[in-house]
């Protein structure tokens, strides 16, 4: 019925076409006006001299201090510190890998850039935690605060990272401080949410027990609630760090510098090899930060094990001798550390430190080495260690272009793949949405979808969002982005759900798939573009493929989880009736897993949108490109802002529709 209405409307309005450009609101001009006002009043107006500039100076000072310190440290101290921290969190093997990872920064001559990114991260995450943990605690205590924060946090997590950069640029200009502010805003929600959640999930009876002993609210928080919530808080910090890293890289667009800058510059000049080197450095950083905080949160499996070799080799004599030697070294170190720490034991504040002899010894050793190096003179990273594989990658890119584009001179190859996708999917869809369909028909179709899924309120909301795209003057660009999103989502679902089903049915396949998915989820979105460009060159198709890769883990994981979550009894019952595996899957497992799969699709769409927007950087076009242009050139910040707003509308539209869809698939519990 709905389809018939849409078709009829299209037939009646076939002459209308895309949204009339003359109807667009000149928002961009107003924004440019505001930006000019900001530039002119930056030195005089009170809001700058008393609010924005002090904030800016404070952050800048902190950043300079952290960066200066990190760059002042000798390279081997940094590597050793990383190795020690990782060993403490995850064990010796991971620690050694972490040390090697840090050396990689120096080896590809990205030492300064890497530590700049680390400094940006440290300051941004530090501010996020300093704001987020107290905010989470407050939100756990006051229900009203939580109620008013929740929609805000929901909205913040819906929007692509990219969008945050624009309003910040408007107020603070292009530099590193705005990059940090955008990062803080983007990365704040998880730490607030999980602090709140952690404190709220402390059992009421435990809190009551504390109260019964006459604990003040502060004592209850400090001695009972917060310690019990700590694993959850650390998980929040872990997520915050990962989100911060993904945006710190993109923030190179507004002059944040660091590794992101290298990737961006290299991609722009098509130095793919160099981009990959810097991209890998980001991945190393991401894995390091993720694993260490993950381990520190106690989420990792086995912690603090001084084992170098895999357990399977535990029986061979030399391995055992090595492990025993390591253990005795550790015991010795503990004893030295303990004797070093003994003076600390008497001072009340430091007694807790004194109980960690390894920690004391490690810090002492690092301090001694650092001071000694400072006296002798800070050594540069030895050039003998450096190696660069950029030229080889560039050669590979050429080779791919020459050989895989049309394999062996036939029609088949990556070229064929991207051409046919462009010709048969992306371009026709874009043309259809932006020009061939009359704009009221598009609005009507989306409104009908909203009405089916969520009734009149959702239909109104959808209509407003779609019409908003037109009134912003972003109709064509929005439909371009929308078309890319549709193609990428379809591809991600077609790959992701079958993979999830396979993973659910075979433990071995699941084990094989897990590291791949982990890897894909750890890589910041922006870096994922680099390898895709090696294979597919620049343009819309690599953007779409990167989006598919980026969103794949969500679809696969939640399908797998959903099917595995189906109760064993239901599956057994189906088998008992003599159903084949296929029948059990189709008639029992998939329907019961539908809520989880829908949630997976929901996430897939949001991830794809975030990535498609970023792909605007490498020729994806659409709203992303327009936003980037706004960020690059101060004179077009207005149109960039408007494009960002269009992304927000698109994201909210898709999110609300999908949420409603997911709810329809979730069975409501009957009764009270």
């Amino acid at each position, binding site marked *: 019925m709905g389809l018939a209405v849409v078709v009829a409307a299209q037939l009646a309005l076939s002459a209308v076409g895309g949204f009339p450009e003359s109807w667009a609101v000149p928002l961009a001009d107003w924004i440019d006006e505001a930006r000019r006002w900001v530039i002119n009043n930056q030195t005089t107006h009170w809001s700058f001299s008393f609010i924005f500039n002090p904030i800016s100076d404070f952050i800048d000072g902190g950043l300079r201090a952290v960066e200066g310190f990190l760059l002042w440290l000798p390279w081997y101290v940094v590597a050793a510190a990383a190795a020690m921290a990782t060993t403490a969190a995850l064990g010796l093997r991971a620690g050694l890998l972490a040390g090697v990872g840090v050396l990689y920064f120096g080896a590809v001559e990205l030492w300064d850039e890497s530590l700049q990114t680390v400094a940006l991260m440290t300051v941004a995450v530090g501010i996020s935690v300093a704001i987020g943990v107290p905010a989470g605690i407050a939100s756990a205590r006051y229900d009203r605060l939580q109620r008013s924060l929740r929609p805000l946090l929901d909205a913040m997590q819906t929007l692509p990272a990219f969008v945050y950069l624009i309003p910040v640029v408007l107020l603070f200009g292009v530099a590193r401080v705005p990059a940090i502010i955008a990062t803080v805003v983007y990365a704040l929600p998880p730490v607030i949410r999980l602090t709140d959640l952690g404190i709220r999930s402390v059992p009421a*009876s435990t809190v009551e027990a504390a109260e*019964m*002993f*006459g604990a003040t609210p502060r004592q209850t928080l400090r001695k009972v609630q917060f310690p019990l919530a700590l694993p959850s808080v650390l998980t929040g910090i872990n997520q915050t760090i990962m989100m911060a890293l993904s945006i710190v890289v993109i923030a190179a667009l507004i002059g944040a510098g660091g590794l992101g800058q290298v990737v961006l510059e290299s991609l722009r000049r098509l130095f793919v090899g160099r981009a990959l080197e810097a991209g890998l450095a980001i991945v190393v950083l991401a894995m390091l930060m993720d694993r260490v905080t993950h381990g520190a949160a106690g989420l990792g499996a086995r912690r603090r094990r001084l084992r170098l070799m895999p357990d399977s080799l535990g029986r061979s004599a030399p391995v055992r001798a090595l492990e025993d030697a390591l253990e005795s070294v550790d015991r010795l170190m503990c004893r030295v550390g303990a004797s070093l720490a003994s003076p600390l034991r008497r001072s009340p504040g430091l007694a807790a430190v004194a109980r960690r002899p390894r920690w004391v010894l490690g810090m002492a050793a690092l301090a001694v080495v650092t001071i000694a190096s400072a006296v002798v003179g800070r050594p540069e990273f030895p050039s003998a260690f450096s190696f660069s594989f950029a030229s080889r990658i560039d050669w590979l890119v050429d080779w791919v272009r020459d050989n895989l584009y049309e394999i062996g001179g036939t029609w088949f190859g990556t070229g064929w793949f991207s051409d046919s996708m462009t010709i048969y999917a992306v371009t026709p869809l874009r043309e259809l949405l932006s020009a061939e369909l009359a704009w009221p028909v598009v609005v009507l179709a989306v409104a009908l979808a909203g009405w089916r899924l969520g009734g009149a309120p959702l239909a109104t909301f959808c209509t407003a969002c779609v019409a908003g795209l037109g009134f912003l003057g972003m109709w064509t660009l929005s439909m371009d982005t929308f078309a890319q999103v549709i193609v990428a989502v379809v591809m991600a679902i077609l790959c992701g759900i079958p993979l999830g089903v396979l993973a659910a049915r075979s433990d071995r396949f699941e084990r094989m798939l897990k590291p791949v998915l982990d890897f894909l989820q750890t890589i910041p979105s922006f870096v994922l573009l680099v390898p895709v460009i090696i294979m597919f060159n620049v343009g819309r198709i690599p953007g779409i493929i990167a989006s598919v890769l980026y969103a794949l883990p969500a679809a696969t994981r939640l399908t797998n989880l959903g099917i595995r979550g189906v109760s064993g009894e239901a599956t057994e019952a189906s088998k008992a009736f003599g159903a084949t595996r296929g029948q059990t899957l189709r008639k029992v497992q998939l329907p019961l897993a539908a809520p989880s799969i829908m949630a997976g699709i929901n996430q897939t769409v949001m991830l794809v949108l975030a990535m498609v927007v970023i792909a605007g950087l490498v020729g994806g076009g659409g709203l992303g490109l327009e936003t980037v242009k706004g960020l690059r050139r101060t004179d077009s910040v207005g149109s960039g802002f408007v494009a960002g707003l269009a992304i927000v509308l698109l994201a909210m539209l898709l999110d609300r529709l999908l949420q409603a869809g997911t709810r329809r698939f979730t069975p409501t519990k009957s009764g009270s």
Partner: protein
Amino acid sequence: MTAEPTPLECTGTTKLFGDDISGARALLADGCDRQQILDRTGCLVAVRDATFSVSRGETFVVMGLSGSGKSTLIRCLSRLIEPTSGTIKIEGTPIGDLDDQELRELRRRRLSMVFQHFGLFSHRRVIDNVAFGLEIQGVAKSQRYERALEVLSVVGLSDWADHFPQQLSGGMQQRVGLARALCVEPEILFFDEPFSALDPLIRREMQDELLSLQARMQRTLVFITHDFHEALKLGDRIAIMKDGEFVQVGTPEQIVSAPADDYVREFTTDAPKTKVITVGSAMKPLHGAAPPGEPVRVDDVLDDVLARLLADPAELGIVDERGEVVGTVDRARVAALLGESSRAGAVSAGRSTPRQ
């Protein structure tokens, strides 16, 4: 006993949950029942007009099924839940008037509570759990550890001080809960169904332990349970609670031998009467000379004398606290007493639907 105030005195305590408290109060004053008040105002009467007092060394048990308001009542006594009306006096001081600071001080020094699901702090070692109350009071570490170890040895857990609660069995965890409550040397101890999460054998063991502890400590205990047998075993006096109200308050013997209504009688049907009813209830006043043979005491329960009565049809003499013979008991009187109460129980069980 003259000047010493009653440790705990609770007068007309009422707790309403809901939005229209004043409306519900008016209805309460008019004598409307719980369902009417719920229907008209949406307010739940959790506790209605609870009045009782507990003297020093006494164990007062509040027994009721789930939803009867007993947990709410015990929380009102320490203002973990603020009562809607009524007066609660601890050592003569009305606690309703205390400000936050004074209330905390009261909880720190005088009250303690043992919780149904233990309410232990899973991030603290056993010893830090036990010493928690002292830590909150600001007692120095060495002192509080010393005291905590002392209490841990009382409950037999000295060797487990450095473990975390999750590493202990349920019974041991509740011993930690008990030790934690005892550590601050409270005058009044509240027990909120402390043993209901334990399996039957451990539960009995814990009950015996509590009885022997109480025999030594002579504290004031308020004990909540849904288990009638537990109430009989532990309580000096028992209050039976139903729909937020006390149905009957009395000694175990009074309740078993004279249930106030059918609701109470249902609990008593399978109660171990011979362990509760004393020889005194079956006593025939003494006429003439005391019967031969060693007399029994007036407060012995029937269980103590049944064997002798069954073995020998003769009367037994009964002596009071001073050792004077005051009456006699024989087979026929005990049989009549037991038969009467079980018949009444059987009738009531047949008449009304069983409750869960």
